[in-house]
């Protein structure tokens, strides 16, 4: 089944769905413009705005469910944005509303959690302003009905991400990390931008409404667009997606981005923003489905990243960086799914939503642990925390079981769906994804054992305690989602059928085969990983200082030499170029300019003496000038 037509909205909550963007934007504006005056109640306003957006999203979702399938893509045109190019318009359809629910739902929980987490921070009001700004931009990104408005949101989340990673800008590492994230993202942004340019020049439109699969096929068959153009668009869109979603080769910023406050890592760098790339690929399905090469590249990037992230996760002692590696890896799974057509889309989005819950759950759990351990992030200085913070530990472990794909928890259903679909397309990719799942079992178990079990390796002044309920309640809510969401979304192909009006429906709906060869192999490999982790980090002593480790460990600790590669390929030559430019500027251009300036100044000084102040000499100069003019005219005229 092809995606449905986009129709004019039928009023109701969908008609005012712009409130979803406007409310948090208003919150950010109030908090930033009124400054310190809002310090006392600013965080409450931030939470209220986020909850307000959530309420609108839920109401719009309910309204959408009440409509027949053919009417479930509703366009809301607000005003003319750039004349002749794009309207400011929103698209409420199953895909965008799924994202909106995730963003506002998880976002609201993280807002609430932040009240507690940031309670001692003098910049709390500013923090909530940025969070609200992020929510607004992210909602604009997913609700946009054309690529230009999408790009506005895309840049908006980039800005919010920059501001929040560098929130503690007095730390040089945080400032550097923010800059790095921003710069690496520029590369991807340029890809997206050029993709939009190409779409505009090829199709004369940037509206999703007019860029359907039919339109793309029509353009190819009529010769308006060559196969190469479509492939190029797909690859450029993928480049954009790689930047935002930290996929190879633009992955390097995500690990550093953990310098931001933990709720930020949970919301932006785990649950929502980093999934924008997946959204982009799914939303642009029309192009990818017409360009098998681009689709293949998407799946390769996905698999490469899921393995790379998993390997990095194995070697990190910093709990947040371990989780960041895991995020990379899980988005790799989603990307893989997004490259597999309509069946894959549904599994990718299902995994994305489930991941949004269990990863936010674990990040907030990590934050809760750090809160208890004086902001210590090194897992080698944790251990045995289960007994002192039971709620955090229990919820974290639910998230953990969900991510490794423990039977009947969320990740089990969604990840298995992606692996099964990948197997049907390409055995190699499928089996690599299975291996990735096994590694996930290992590194996540390592994290849990090092943190909550084994001997206490705490610092002397650490007095861990359970966090306040404003932090634990969101944890509990998120862990409930981690348990049930996967089954709810996957069984009976519920999400796939819901998304059908937006992304299309495959001819044969996949069944759920828990006892297939890949499924059982996955389970077996995960079990091996868990057991191995138990022997290494649960039963055995964990040294407080990291041992030197093998070649492979070093490789993973150094983020697979991604930074070294960037440095060698881009930073060093860039620095050389900059140094050369400075040299050239100093010696060449400045020398020339300074010489010129001195020359002009000298000329000016000499010429100035002509200005004697005597009328007679002025009159003489006029006479002289007149003579020259007469002479010149006669000369020219008689030539």
């Amino acid at each position, binding site marked *: 089944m092809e995606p449905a037509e986009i129709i004019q909205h039928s009023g109701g909550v969908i008609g005012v769905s712009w409130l979803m963007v406007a409310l948090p934007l208003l919150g950010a504006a109030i908090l930033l413009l009124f400054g310190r005056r809002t310090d006392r109640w600013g965080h409450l306003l931030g939470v209220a705005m986020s909850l307000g957006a959530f309420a609108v999203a839920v109401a719009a979702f309910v309204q959408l469910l009440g409509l027949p399938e053919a009417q479930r893509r509703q366009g809301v045109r607000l005003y003319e944005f750039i004349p002749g190019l794009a309207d400011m318009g929103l698209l409420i359809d199953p895909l965008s509303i799924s994202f909106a629910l995730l963003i506002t739902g998880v976002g609201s929980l993280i807002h609430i959690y932040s009240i507690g987490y940031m309670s001692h921070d003098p910049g709390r009001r500013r923090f909530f302003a940025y969070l609200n700004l992020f929510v607004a931009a992210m909602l604009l990104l997913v609700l946009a009905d054309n690529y230009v408005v999408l790009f506005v949101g895309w840049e908006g989340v980039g800005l919010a991400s920059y501001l929040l990673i560098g929130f503690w800008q007095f730390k040089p590492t945080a400032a550097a990390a923010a800059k790095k994230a921003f710069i690496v993202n520029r590369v991807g942004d340029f890809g997206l931008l050029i993709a939009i340019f190409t779409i505009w020049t090829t199709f004369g439109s940037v509206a999703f409404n007019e860029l359907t699969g039919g339109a793309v096929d029509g353009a190819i068959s009529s010769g308006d667009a060559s196969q190469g153009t479509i492939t190029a668009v797909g690859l450029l869109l993928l480049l954009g997606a790689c930047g935002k979603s930290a996929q190879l080769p633009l992955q390097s910023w995500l690990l550093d981005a953990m310098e931001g406050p933990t709720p930020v890592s949970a919301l932006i760098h785990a649950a929502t923003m980093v999934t924008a790339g997946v959204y982009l690929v799914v939303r642009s399905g029309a192009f990818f489905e017409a360009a098998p090469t681009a689709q293949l590249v998407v799946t390769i990037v996905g698999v490469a990243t899921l393995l790379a992230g998993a390997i990095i996760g194995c070697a990190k002692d910093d709990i947040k960086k371990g989780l960041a590696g895991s995020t990379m890896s899980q988005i790799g799974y989603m990307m893989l799914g997004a490259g597999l057509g309509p069946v894959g889309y549904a599994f990718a989005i299902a995994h994305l939503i489930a991941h949004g819950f269990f990863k936010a759950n674990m990040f907030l759990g990590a934050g809760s642990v750090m809160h208890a351990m004086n902001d210590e992030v090194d897992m080698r200085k944790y251990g045995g925390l289960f007994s002192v913070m039971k709620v955090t530990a229990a919820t974290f472990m639910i998230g953990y079981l969900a991510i490794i794909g423990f039977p009947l928890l969320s990740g089990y259903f969604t990840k298995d769906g992606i692996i099964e679909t990948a197997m049907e397309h390409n055995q190699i990719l499928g089996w690599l994804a299975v291996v990735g799942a096994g590694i996930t079992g290992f590194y996540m178990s390592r994290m849990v054992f090092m943190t909550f079990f084994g001997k206490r390796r705490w610092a002397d002044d650490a007095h861990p305690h359970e966090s306040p309920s404003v932090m634990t309640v969101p944890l509990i809510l998120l862990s409930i989602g981690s348990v049930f969401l996967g089954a709810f979304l996957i069984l009976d192909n519920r999400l796939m059928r819901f998304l059908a009006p937006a992304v299309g429906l495959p001819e044969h709906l996949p069944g759920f085969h828990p006892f297939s060869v890949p499924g059982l192999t996955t389970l077996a490999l995960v079990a091996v990983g868990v057991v191995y982790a138990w022997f290494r980090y649960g039963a055995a002593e964990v040294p407080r200082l990291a041992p030197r480790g093998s070649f492979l460990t070093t490789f993973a600790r150094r983020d697979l030499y991604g930074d070294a590669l960037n440095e060698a390929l881009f930073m060093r030559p860039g620095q050389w170029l900059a140094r050369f430019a400075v040299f050239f500027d100093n010696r060449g251009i400045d020398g020339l300019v300074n010489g010129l300036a001195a020359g002009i*100044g000298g000329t000016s000084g000499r010429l100035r003496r002509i200005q004697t102040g005597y009328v007679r000499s002025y009159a003489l100069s006029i006479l002289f000038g007149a003579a020259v003019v007469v002479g010149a005219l006669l000369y020219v005229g008689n030539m």
Partner: protein
Amino acid sequence: MNGTIQAPTIEYALLAPMLLVFGAAIIGVLVEAFAPRDLRKSIQMPLTLLALLGGFVLTVLNGINGLPDAPAAMGAVAVDGPALFIWGIILVLALVSTLLINDEDQFVAQAAAVPGSPDEEEAILSGYAQTEVYPLLLFSVGGMLLFASANDLLAMFVGLEVMSLPLYLLCGLARHRRLLSQEASVKYFLLGAFSSAFFLYGTALIYGYAGSVDLKAISAVLTEVSGQETLLLVGLALLGVGLLFKIGAAPFQAWKPDVYQGAPTAVTALMASTVLVAAFGAVLRVFWVALGGLEWDWKPVMWGIAILTMIVGAILAITQTEIKRMLAYSSIAHAGFLLTGVVAIGAAEQNRQALSAILFYLAAYGFTTVGAFAVVTMVRDAGGEAGHLSRWAGLGKRAPVLAGIFAFFLLAFAGIPLTSGFFGKYAVFSAAVAGDALPLVIVGVVSSAIAAFFYVRVIVLMFFNEPAVDGPSIATPTVGTSAVVALAAAATVVLGVFPQPVLDLADQAASALFIR
């Protein structure tokens, strides 16, 4: 022609703006003669403002009513699109300048009394005040209107003199630095008279060649006669010298810094804005309408003059230490930029582009200039305005708003985007490129870069230098002065951000290119 003299026909409605201004000027003279001394100012000021405002309204009405297809007043005055646009600019700028003139500190009460002395106190108390300033200003403005729209060379000469004579007087009325002011006045008068003689002699030679002083008739003769043209070429050269003197093109620019510095700043503001506008109106009429057929002869010379003017203006401004002199040289450089537009004469469509560019430039530059001089009037020392640039150091700390606005004007002069100056320069330069004057544009851009140096230097001085201990005080502006600054700043912003309406208007005016 049978020995009878026909009464001239006058199109009163078309000429109403000019007639109103002249009429008000005459009433002003009567007021000076008959009204009691202490009442004069309260009559003159509103009278002047009303006359200028009325003139502007009548100009707009003329524009709305549509343009005639022949010159008015027996062919002496061409009321066409460019004329109306220029009238509008002159009247508005004069109106704004009048608000500046309404500041007692600017003008001498009695020429013999030392500023601040008991004598002067007495003179002021007994009601002496140079209220003649107002009718003089009106006469001068009337002259400008005629100068810019004259359709024959004699009418143009009359306009030139009616414009200039009152200005010579106004220049000598400064309250502070009186000797400088009076010297400026005499210099301006002598040199002005000298250049008028050139103009008149040129007119005579051209009459000798063409047998007419009518611009259209001259233009017609050029198409027919060929052969020995020395008379014509010399006449053209001398006519040009007279006009180029008024716009301050090099090498006829020497008077400008001295006069701008010496004149009361309010008068400088009036001169720097309106005279330039009127003179460019006249230059375009002479060179495009009457002598357009000779373009291949005068173009190379005009090239040279434009280049020289831009370079002299920009380079000499660098070493100026007096703010008004610096602005004078800046004005010379801007005259050079405008001349690049004059050179862009060619095919009809190209003329239209060049003409509308010049018109827009004049409007943009005029407002910024009046605003800049208005700021100059407010920065004062014990001895009047603090002219020396060193006194402006650290002004940004003492008066951030004022210094910020002045910096904005300077950026507009430099032609930074989002100011009116940018679009003015852009329009003129692109017209020049279309007119195959690329080398001129290159010189123009280079001298803009040089000019940017001294504009920015003042900004640096104001904002990044420590203020002097006994630095100048900022005078509490009169309502008029603050209105002028606000208006000029607003115009500079609006023309820089939303130039389209005025560009359209200029284009529309240019499309009704001079009646030939």
